[in-house]
């Protein structure tokens, strides 16, 4: 649908200069008259017809209809024209009605009134929208739509702001704030009458909704216009009385019209195969035609003369024996019409119907996919791809908002090197659970009163003013101030902490501001230039107004945002910067001593937070030199902001200059909770043979931990990590500034690690693999040379995690996976997923959230990730099977029918005569056999929904395309041919023209035989349906019995019609066929003989090599027989299902365990930690933790090479390549028996070093890849004193002990041993888990009690 006409409008690249309010209009700019209709009265017929003929099938059928007008036609012309006219007519009437509606809507819109300033009469006058021109000044009042793209001039409010709703534009319903330029915001609406010298220079009309580059030329000054001052057509004004604006783009040049380009349409695999079958059918058709034409031409030439009764002397062209060439040609045309029944005319119509029923009837109405909390049902935005849902083998998923809820909660923080917050994330819980440890999940009563939306934090060192007395209270104060000031949030409502609402661009920002509020820094007011904060400090409560000098906005390349503020009462200029750790660390002041001290501990905290699945943000500030600011920086900034070209680049460049020499304050950690049912859902999908690729912007350790938490990564998987961070060569090259060399090396490193990965995979066939790759490595892996290798490695994995990827990379990965022929499904919720969603075979958007962009470009929208399970396993599977079966049935029946026509022609020298009546031939497809395929397509279901979910492996049938592959198609067509043969032999021999079927002695006549043959075809076709369908609902009964009944009803009714109409059929059935016993006897015999072998083969297949669904059907039957209605053989799946389908509204319950100042985790401490004073979660396998830490992209960390006590260097195992390939096993290899806790822990350091030797030896025997010893692969492993977790000593012990026993060890452990070994890890008395800087050691009795608790848990686990 093209909404805009290119015609006279200027090219997009051209700049435009809009003179405001001059009354003279530049007519090269489009007016505001809009038309969205596709046709006018005059163009309707040709254009609408043209639209129809873009379908090849319609062209073919029209050709047939046209040919049927020629004397060569074997059929009466109306029998071909009627269906064609009906099909085209219905489609065109639909078009016409739709277009008329659009026309009426256009007319209404074009005539809407709006207040326009008339410069000549110097007053506001009411005009219609279509009369608005570029340069006009107009007034828009509350709840009106903007008639054109406007420059926001004033809103008559103090701040010059207004609220708009962009629903029509991007589907988002939250209000957005727009701000008028400062220079005009104070003008009143009457002031604009004199507002004549102003002009707007800006870029040409374009489709970029969120960007605008332009300047307001006012009083000789050039003022930059931010996109925030542009009001777009399509938006509504809300909560604001009225605004004044100047028209910049009108009509078809507005952004909404420029954006109305159609999304690329997707076609399913099945549809493409259908095309191929149609192609084959055409091939068959042409073969038939050619055979017939040649035979007929030769016969006519040589033999027709003898057949005097055909009057060969009375020549007409198509039977002229002297002109064989033309005879052949005419015969070809005749055959072309005749055998056209091979091409199913109603296939497309039926398919469309069925798909609409599937999507509108089932998918949109499935209560299993209805999310009560957001009141969102699933939505199939296109019905083209239903069956594709049943063939997915790779899911590419976004993380934030898709796997997680995108409900951000302030969860932890680290200030001045001290970690605060005692919560345990679900991820940590999941990690612990994996180890068989239960964490104490009780919330501390004090915490409850601080809980609110966005805030789930408690730490009595900070809360309730406790921080006043802390050591670093200055830093803490600054930290809180930053939270309250450095953002773009707008407060709404009463300036009271309880009632205020924050309008934030992202929930993270809101979480930070709410946190500031909870800490006593209440941000309550924002004007254009100021931010007001009620600060609750040791000095008392005070309202402070900060002047906001500049906002350096966030974007994905900068990965940070800053504000430059001036304290009203003080004269200092301060820049607050928050952003990703990497970017902030690069910009820290090296000469500021505190930085160096904090860097390490903050970095470590950030890693821990990341490991717990939290989103971290680094906070910093700096004082800015006033003179430098005013004289140097500010002018540059203004120049950059007002430049028309490359504005973004210039702004970024200038920002760089002020965001430096920062002082680190600490970091925040925000929890983005996993969505409900995600782990179960992922398990189900994995069981369904679906590979899952998670593409996330997160850090590697966050991603890995989320991966574990949501069951994507499993303990029994062999995991490979590919990264280029920490590769020494590369870093050295980078340090030298040799970018090319660095790239070359990185490329080489990635190549090497991929190759190693593949080799390891080959050696460990049958193990589930997982691969984790970061964005930078990915960019090399996606290069032309490495892409095939990466793909082959990736597709062998059950799970792939790509971290730190850009939206573009997401789309690239999707395309790469697609290129192998896999059916991909991309799921995401945000604008950054749009590329991925559009390039995958199926795009799924998460709906019910604020952002709608992903949904707008998706094919299906569901409210929760877990709904993928019913969407794929139920709907996709059903739709695939149904459509496949329906299409095959279509081809089967048409081939059966078409071939009988061809074979009969062989008995009349291919003269083009048919044995049937042309009218019922036409009705064959559209009436007698129309209903059953539709019912198959809508109602057939091989196994019940519950069984499809209980046995997710059934889904693999679709992935293998078992129902619609070459074999299936050929079998169906062979069956069709066999049945044709039976029918032809039985009828043409059994009912030959020399025998009589009645006592009266009349031999069979042609139409009688034809009637019997057609009856047999109809019955056979329905017998086939009866044979293949799996379940009988009333719809099946109705369709099958009704279709057959209609045939006989037709024979009765039509046979009684006037002779002129019914011709051959006139009284044929009643008078001739029905009284004959043979008619009915053949009708019983022929279909039975047709179906018997087919039936047998199907049953034999079921007996000898049953399909999976056959077995499940049997199980279902068995269960029913045994009276077990529900599915409950294994509790696991039951719980999975109940999790996915829980309709309970789930409040995002927070989780704050009782707090103990000395420990972050209760009962989960290790002796190693105690010795070193370091914290360890304990829930995680220390080796894994160590690995994670080593392998994640943590540049600053590796560069620093901080030496921490607690780990002995492991020997290097793998060779030269800089990258890390770290396969890992489920567990630390188990001790032969449970190693006594105390012993295992008490190995002194030296002994550990000694133990590394057997480990190396062990590696040598070639099992390295699958064993944790392999972990240490990579020559970049710090050679001494790594900063790995302190208690790495623990796993080393069993490792050493196991070295010799290894060959006998089972790879997987029984859960009990797993649990116990973990228990022994955790069960370390008296561990301390607080940062070294705070708190004393816990009293021993406390630890003892904890130990007892854990022992109790352990015992109960053993009993279990």
């Amino acid at each position, binding site marked *: 649908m093209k909404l805009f006409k290119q015609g006279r409008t200027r090219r997009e690249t051209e700049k435009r200069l809009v003179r405001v309010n001059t009354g003279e209009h530049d007519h090269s700019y489009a007016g505001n008259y809009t038309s969205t209709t596709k046709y006018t009265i005059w163009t309707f017929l040709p254009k609408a017809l043209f639209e129809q003929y873009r379908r090849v099938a319609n062209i073919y059928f029209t050709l047939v209809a046209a040919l049927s007008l020629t004397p060569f036609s074997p059929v009466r012309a109306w029998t071909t024209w009627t269906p064609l006219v009906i099909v085209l007519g219905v489609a065109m009437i639909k078009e016409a009605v739709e277009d008329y509606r659009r026309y009426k809507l256009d007319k209404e819109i074009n005539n809407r009134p709006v207040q326009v300033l008339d410069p000549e009469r110097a007053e506001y006058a009411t005009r219609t929208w279509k009369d608005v021109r570029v340069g006009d000044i107009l007034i828009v009042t509350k709840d009106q739509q903007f008639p054109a793209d406007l420059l926001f001039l004033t809103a008559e409010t103090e701040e010059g702001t207004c609220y708009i709703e962009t629903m029509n534009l991007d589907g988002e319903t939250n209000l957005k704030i727009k701000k008028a330029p400062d220079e005009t915001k104070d003008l009143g609406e009457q002031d604009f009458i004199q507002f004549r010298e102003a002009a707007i220079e800006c870029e040409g009309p374009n489709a970029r909704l969120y960007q605008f580059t332009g300047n307001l030329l006012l009083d000789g000054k050039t003022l930059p216009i931010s996109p925030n001052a542009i009001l777009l057509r399509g938006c509504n004004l809300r909560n604001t009385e009225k605004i004044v604006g100047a028209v910049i783009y009108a009509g078809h040049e507005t952004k909404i019209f420029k954006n109305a380009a159609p999304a690329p349409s997707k076609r399913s695999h099945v549809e493409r195969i259908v095309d191929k079958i149609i192609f084959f059918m055409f091939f068959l058709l042409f073969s038939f035609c050619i055979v017939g034409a040649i035979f007929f031409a030769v016969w006519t030439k040589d033999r027709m003369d003898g057949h005097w009764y055909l009057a060969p002397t009375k020549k007409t062209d198509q039977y002229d024996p002297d002109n064989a060439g033309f005879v052949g040609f005419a015969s070809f045309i005749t055959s072309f019409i005749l055998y056209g029944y091979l091409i199913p005319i109603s296939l497309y119509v039926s398919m469309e119907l069925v798909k609409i029923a599937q999507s509108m009837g089932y998918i949109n109405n499935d209560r299993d996919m209805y999310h009560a909390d957001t009141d969102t049902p699933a939505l199939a935005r296109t019905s083209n791809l239903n069956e594709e849902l049943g063939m997915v083998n790779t899911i590419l998923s976004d993380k934030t908002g898709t796997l997680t809820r995108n409900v951000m909660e302030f969860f932890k923080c680290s200030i001045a090197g001290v970690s605060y917050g005692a919560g345990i994330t679900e991820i940590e819980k999941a990690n612990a659970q994996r180890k068989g440890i239960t964490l104490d999940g009780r919330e501390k009563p004090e915490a409850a009163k601080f809980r609110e939306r966005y805030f789930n934090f408690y730490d009595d060192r900070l809360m309730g003013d406790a921080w006043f007395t802390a050591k670093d209270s200055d830093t803490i104060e600054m930290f809180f101030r930053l939270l309250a000031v450095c953002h773009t949030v707008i407060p709404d409502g009463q300036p009271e902490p309880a009632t205020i609402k924050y309008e934030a661009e992202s929930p993270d920002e809101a979480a930070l501001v709410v946190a500031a509020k909870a800490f006593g820094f209440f941000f309550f007011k924002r004007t254009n230039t100021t931010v007001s904060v009620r600060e609750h400090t040791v000095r008392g409560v005070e309202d402070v107004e900060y002047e906001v000098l500049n906002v350096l906005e966030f974007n994905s390349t900068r990965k940070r945002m800053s504000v430059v503020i001036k304290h009203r009462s003080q004269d200092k200029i301060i820049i607050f910067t928050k952003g990703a750790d990497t970017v902030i660390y690069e910009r820290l002041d090296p000469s500021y001593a505190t930085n160096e001290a904090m860097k390490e501990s903050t970095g470590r905290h950030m890693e821990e937070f990341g490991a717990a699945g939290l989103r971290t943000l680094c906070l910093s500030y700096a004082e800015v030199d006033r003179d430098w600011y005013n004289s140097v920086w500010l002018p540059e900034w203004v120049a950059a902001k007002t430049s028309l070209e490359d504005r973004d680049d210039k702004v970024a460049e200038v920002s760089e200059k002020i965001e430096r020499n920062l002082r680190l304050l600490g970091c925040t950690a925000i929890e983005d909770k996993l969505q409900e049912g995600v782990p179960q859902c992922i398990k189900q999908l994995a069981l369904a043979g679906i590979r899952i690729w998670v593409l996330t912007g997160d850090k590697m350790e966050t991603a890995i931990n989320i991966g574990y938490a949501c069951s994507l990564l499993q303990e029994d998987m062999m995991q490979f990590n590919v990264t280029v961070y920490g590769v020494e060569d590369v870093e050295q090259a980078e340090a030298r500034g040799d970018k090319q060399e660095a790239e070359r090396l990185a490329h080489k490193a990635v190549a090497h690690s991929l190759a190693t990965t593949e080799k390891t995979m080959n050696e460990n066939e049958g193990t589930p693999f997982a691969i984790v790759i970061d964005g930078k490595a990915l960019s090399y892996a996606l290069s032309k040379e490495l892409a095939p290798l990466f793909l082959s490695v990736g597709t062998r994995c059950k799970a792939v995690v790509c971290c730190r990827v850009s939206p573009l990379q997401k789309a690239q990965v999707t395309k790469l996976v697609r290129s192998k022929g896999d059916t991909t499904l991309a799921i995401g919720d945000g604008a950054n997923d749009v590329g991925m969603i559009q390039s995958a075979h199926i795009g799924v958007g998460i709906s019910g959230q604020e952002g709608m962009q992903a949904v707008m470009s998706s094919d299906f929208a569901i409210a929760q990730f877990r709904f993928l399970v019913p969407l794929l396993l139920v709907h996709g599977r059903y739709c695939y099977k149904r459509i496949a079966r329906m299409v095959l049935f279509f081809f089967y029946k048409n081939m059966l029918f078409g071939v009988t026509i061809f074979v009969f022609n062989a008995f009349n020298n291919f003269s083009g005569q048919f044995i049937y009546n042309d009218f019922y031939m036409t009705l064959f497809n559209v009436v007698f056999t129309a209903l059953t395929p539709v019912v198959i397509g809508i109602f057939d*279901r091989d196994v019940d929904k519950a069984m499809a979910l209980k046995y997710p492996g059934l889904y693999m049938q679709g992935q293998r395309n078992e129902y619609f592959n070459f074999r299936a198609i050929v079998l169906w067509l062979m069956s069709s041919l066999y049945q044709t043969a039976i029918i032809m032999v039985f009828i043409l021999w059994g009912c030959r023209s020399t*025998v009589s079927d009645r006592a*009266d002695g009349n031999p069979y006549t042609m139409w009688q035989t034809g009637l019997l043959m057609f009856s047999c075809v109809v019955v056979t076709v329905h017998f086939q349906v009866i044979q293949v369908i799996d379940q009988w*609902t009333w719809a099946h009964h109705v369709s099958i019995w009704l279709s057959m009944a209609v045939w006989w009803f037709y024979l009765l009714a039509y046979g009684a019609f006037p002779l002129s109409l019914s011709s051959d059929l006139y009284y044929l059935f009643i008078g001739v066929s029905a009284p004959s016993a043979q008619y009915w006897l053949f009708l019983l015999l022929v279909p039975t003989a047709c179906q*018997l072998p087919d039936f047998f083969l199907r049953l034999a297949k079921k*007996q000898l090599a049953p399909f999976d669904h056959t077995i499940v059907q049997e*199980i279902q039957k068995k269960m029913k027989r045994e009276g077990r209605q529900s599915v409950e053989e294994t509790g696991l799946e039951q719980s999975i299902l109940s999790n996915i389908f829980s309709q309970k509204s789930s409040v995002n319950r927070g989780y704050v365990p009782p707090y103990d100042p000395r420990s972050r985790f209760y009962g989960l401490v290790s002796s190693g930690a105690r010795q070193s004073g370091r914290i360890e979660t304990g829930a995680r396998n220390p080796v894994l933790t160590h690995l994670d830490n080593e392998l994640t992209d943590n540049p600053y960390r590796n560069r620093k090479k901080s030496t921490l006590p607690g780990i002995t260097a492991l020997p290097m195992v793998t060779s030269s390549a800089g990258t890390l390939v770290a396969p890992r096993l489920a567990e630390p290899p188990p001790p032969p028996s449970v190693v006594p806790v105390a012993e295992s822990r008490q190995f002194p350091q030296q002994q550990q070093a000694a133990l590394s030797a057997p480990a190396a030896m062990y590696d040598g025997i070639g099992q390295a890849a699958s064993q944790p010893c392999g972990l240490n692969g990579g020559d970049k492993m710090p050679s001494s004193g790594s900063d790995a977790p302190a208690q790495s000593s623990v796993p080393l012990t069993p490792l050493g002990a196991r070295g010799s026993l290894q060959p006998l060890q089972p790879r997987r452990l029984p859960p009990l041993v797993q649990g116990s070994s973990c228990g022994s890890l955790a069960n370390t008395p008296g561990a301390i888990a607080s940062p070294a800087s705070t708190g004393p050691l816990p009293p021993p009795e406390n630890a003892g009690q904890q130990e007892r608790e854990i022992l109790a848990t352990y015992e109960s686990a053993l009993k279990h």
Partner: protein
Amino acid sequence: MTSPTPQGEGTSKKTNEPRNTKITQQTLPACKPILEPVWIVFIFFAIGVVLVPIGAVCLYYGLKPVEISARYDQTCVQGASNAEREAYLYQNAANDSMLRCTIQLRVTADMPAPVFVYYELSGYYQNHRRYVKSRSDMQLAGKTKGLATNLCDPQERYDGNDSLPINPCGLVAWSFFNDTYMMAVSTNDSNLLPLPISDQNIAFKSDIKYRFASYTPQNFNPVIGPLRGGFNLSADSGGATPKDNQRFINWMRLSALPRFRKLWGRIDRDLKAGSMVSVTVYNRYNTYKFDGRKSIVLGTTTWLGSRNPFLGVAYLVTGGLSFILALVYLVLRLARPRKFGDPAALSFNNHPGASG
């Protein structure tokens, strides 16, 4: 929903929750016939049990009728080849008696009345498209008065003369079969007795009633055509109007295959086994030109029609096949037993890691 307070929280909020109907939730009650081996064997067996007896009955009645026939186109006319015979046909066109010949048919078994008299042609394409189309059912039914229509092309006007529209028109009517037969029967001990052949009750009742009208034909084959085919409608040919001439009606009912019989008359008298029927043929119809064959056939029928064992045999074969399939299935089942509904047999249970 009383006052339109924009911020007010509606008590009866409209939700998008899908309705719980059996159709949309895909929980329509359904019958799921899962066939267990016992049932499968039983079904095949049952099919056989139903089909075989039917086959036996059909075969019995298919073999019961008696049929005797003799080809006469070669013997009736002098000439060594079809070309010569055709030439003979032309030479003696003026003298019917020269085309007369007599053939003897031996009655092999008792033939109870009615005995049907057929002629059988082969190599004759009544199903050729040109032939099939060249007719006017409306005209035959007397619905269009006297007019020829272009449906009858190329046989709508006599001699191509516009003033002489043909009724009934078209190739089918034009090529109306014009051999005639007279019969006499002799038993061993008696002389020839004339055997009357009735031309009544030989066409479909519905044809006579609905499709053919009583009217005087126009310009319809006033003479036998130069190609020695085509007959007029007269007492001689079986009736003077289309409705009366049931041989014409039968001729107009086309045959599906190039070898066909048409009913020419019936003998309402029993024929004893061993008696000889001598048929006097007026051999006019030219089948020599296209190398066709002509035969005379006498046959009886039962309720199941004429002699035709095919139906019975087909039933027996299909039924027998069903028995065999039942046995084969049984053998398969015994040779490769499989537990009914065994989860272990699921392909994805055997290879937990396998996908694609």
